[in-house]
């Protein structure tokens, strides 16, 4: 009686936590794909096709752009600092994926409850509810990850 619900009461974060889990799973799957590659096979591809390593970086870039935008209003495409030349080994890619995951977790920690998801976010191209932005990011990042899986047959 008289217990005040906290801002992060679990039942008020059902959708936030559900989305959080999906992004976390995406991160785990990306790491698992990288773990199973070797430094030599990271960026090997058929002519004209994107390599598995690049697809993993693009997957992470989708997440980094969205959560960099949400947390620091930085909507730049992280392409420049995630070039294969910079991330030339498995360990460097895994380190980068961890940094992106940490950024994502920081953003999710700031979503106090599900009502946050209705708030509109101004991206460089449009203004849209946060939930839309998150689902769209999940969709596009998953697509890139699927490309990585398809390219790297293990």
């Amino acid at each position, binding site marked *: 009686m008289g217990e005040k619900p906290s801002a992060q009461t679990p039942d008020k974060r059902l959708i936030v936590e559900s989305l959080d889990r999906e992004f976390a799973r*995406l991160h785990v799957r990306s790491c698992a794909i990288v773990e199973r590659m070797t430094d030599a096979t990271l960026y090997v591809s058929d002519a004209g096709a994107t390599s598995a390593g690049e697809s993993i970086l693009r997957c992470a870039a989708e997440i980094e752009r969205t959560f960099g935008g949400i947390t620091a209003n930085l909507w730049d495409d992280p392409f420049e600092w995630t070039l294969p030349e910079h991330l030339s080994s498995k360990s460097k890619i895994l380190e980068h994926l961890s940094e992106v995951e940490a950024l994502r977790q920081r953003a999710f920690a700031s979503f106090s409850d599900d009502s946050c998801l209705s708030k509109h976010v101004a991206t460089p191209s449009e203004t849209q*509810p946060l939930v839309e932005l998150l689902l769209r990011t999940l969709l596009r990042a998953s697509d890139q990850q699927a490309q990585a899986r398809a390219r790297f047959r293990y």
Partner: protein
Amino acid sequence: MHLVKRLSAASLILTAIVLLTACPSQTTISKINADPARYRNKEVGVVGVVRDSYGVLGTGAYELDDGTGRIWVATRRGVPSRGARVGVKGRVYTGFNWGGRNLGTVLEESDRRTKDR
């Protein structure tokens, strides 16, 4: 006069190019599911009946059945009700997972028309 004719022809060709590239190709769900890589990141149109739908905070997803197969459609507006016949235009994405379940190929809706029955 000759120049006017040439300009008209050029503008006709340009218009045709714009229209042809802007229009999504109508296809069947079975074709998309059979070769998702071919349709990946491309805009397509499909027509079918809504079999299942989930909506939350104005966004959501619904499963469309066109008689040849089923595909999940992610929408940024309210989901149509089950049994509704809709024509959807959208971009194809692959590898979408939710709740540990692989939903596979997903269409991100950009436009939708509800068909009269």
